[in-house]
């Protein structure tokens, strides 16, 4: 009797979870299916779930030829990886100092970091834009990368992690003649892999997907990041109504992160929810 009841409860639970999962996955499935349809199929009055004629080849070819898709992907990779490397290079030494070296002013610096945590990019965007316009940096990779060279979140996260690093090892390294920067890069950072990995995922996903800042500083399609390039492609192809090609481009744009997520699910979930978990 009890077993029947729990079997029934389990069936109800799974049907709710499956219905929800179908809702979550539906846009992905629909995007891929539509990317394989011919324009006739897409705009057919009588509705087809699956492609009636193969249009995939044409759609993916036009995604790569009508939009500079390869260029967009390379831009996305270059920009988000550059941002990540610079953020860690700048933040790790500062995080180490805040975690391990008592110095006058560390309290003030920590308050500035916390203040920085509360300020979204949309706030300093306007003066940064004006400054870039004056020095002629709009429509450059520099404009895409440099404003994100500092990540207060990276400082915050690494500081939490570095705090637990044993002090004796640092002392021993100092006696061995390591400089402080040597200690950061050769001893503390290599043993903080989980924190660095979590931050890397957080940063790369955020900047690969970002629209606001690229939209402001970039007008040249050859410098666009994937989301901006996709938006430009959408605007240019709207008249033609080439939904299939647009969906093909979208599939390519989300593919790297989705595949990476499928291969490293736990790390991704940790990296992206680390802002909310302590």
């Amino acid at each position, binding site marked *: 009797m009890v077993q029947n009841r729990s079997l029934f409860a389990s069936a109800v639970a799974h049907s709710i979870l499956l219905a929800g999962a179908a809702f979550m996955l539906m846009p992905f499935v629909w995007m891929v299916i539509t990317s394989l349809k011919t324009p006739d199929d897409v705009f057919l009055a009588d509705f087809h779930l699956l492609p009636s004629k193969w249009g995939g080849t044409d759609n993916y070819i036009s995604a790569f030829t009508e939009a500079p898709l390869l260029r967009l992907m390379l831009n996305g990779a270059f920009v988000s990886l550059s941002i990540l490397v610079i953020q860690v290079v700048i933040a790790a030494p500062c995080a180490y100092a805040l975690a391990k070296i008592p110095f006058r002013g560390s309290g003030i610096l920590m308050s500035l*970091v916390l203040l920085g945590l509360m300020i979204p990019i949309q706030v*300093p965007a306007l003066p940064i834009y004006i400054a870039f316009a004056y020095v002629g940096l709009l429509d450059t990779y520099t404009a895409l990368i*440099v404003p994100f060279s500092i990540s207060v979140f990276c400082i915050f996260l690494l500081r939490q992690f570095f705090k637990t690093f044993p002090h004796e090892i640092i002392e021993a390294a100092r006696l061995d003649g390591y400089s402080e920067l040597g200690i950061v890069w050769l001893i503390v950072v290599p043993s903080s892999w989980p924190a660095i990995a979590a931050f890397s995922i957080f940063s790369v996903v955020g900047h690969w997907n970002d629209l606001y800042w690229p939209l402001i500083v970039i007008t040249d399609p050859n410098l666009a990041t994937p989301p901006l390039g996709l938006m430009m492609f959408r605007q240019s192809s709207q008249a033609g109504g080439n939904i299939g090609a647009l969906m093909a481009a979208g599939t390519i744009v989300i593919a790297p992160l989705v595949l990476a997520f499928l291969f490293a699910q736990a790390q991704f979930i940790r990296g992206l929810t680390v802002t909310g978990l302590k």
Partner: protein
Amino acid sequence: MSAYIASNNRSGARYGFLSLPTLVMPATILLLAFSLVPSAVVILLSFTNYELGMPGLHFVGLGNYSDMVSDHIFWQSVRNTALYVAIVVPGSIFMALLVALLLERRRFMTRFYKVAYFLPVTATLVAMATVWEFILHPTFGLANHLLTSLGWEPVRFLADPNWAMVSLAIIGIWQSVGFNVILFLAGLGSIPREIDEAAALDGADGGLDRFLTVTWPLLGPTTLFVTLTTAVNSLRIFESVTVITQGGPDKSTGVILYSIYLEAFRYFRTGYASALTVAFLAVTVTLILLQMRVSDRKVHY
């Protein structure tokens, strides 16, 4: 500096005084240059009539702010944003809590579910917004096809001013639910199992009964934290508006960040855009301060 040198001497280390500046100066300078100083400049600009590209700048006191409060487009964008937040926050939390409760202590297929619910968090929203636009298309869309095949009237989701913000909110829920599922699972995981078992012995035997008397109160701090996080994130709705509706139809989806974007980077009314930005910042900071207080005392049993 003296405290620093003192600790230096105590440890007998051989690092010189230059090492501390090399550690913290780059980060400090960049933090000031790209976040704190420009944010202070925005506050100053909000008291001027500066327009990018125009010569000259005058102090206008609270002029921009009084323009703002008497501008019906501003209030419309506040109402639209509030409506969006008011749908996404409870919608996302309810769905996430339900999923987390159903997933907890289940083994079979949990990995599949976690991947399915979390996938939208990683996927580029601009790409997914174009898919949603097509799904919600009045004539060719999958959503209306499903509605009509179930015998309902088709809805002009994104073309109808009454439905457009709701449609964007559905996308917002879809996008945020996976994140909240993970936070709730963490919250549920931190409830000691003995409390649950004690409650069962005390006669709180029905699932719902036990949830209402035990789990829900203990989840209180997590729920508050998730609420504030979702509110902060949904206040920043921008991508779906920019990609799909551009504020339309009939200004029904004009939201705060989109107004700021237009004023600052399309109309170049810098002073006015700065005032809007300051208002946006004030709301964001209030919510984040609340959130920090909540996360300091997340556990209370």
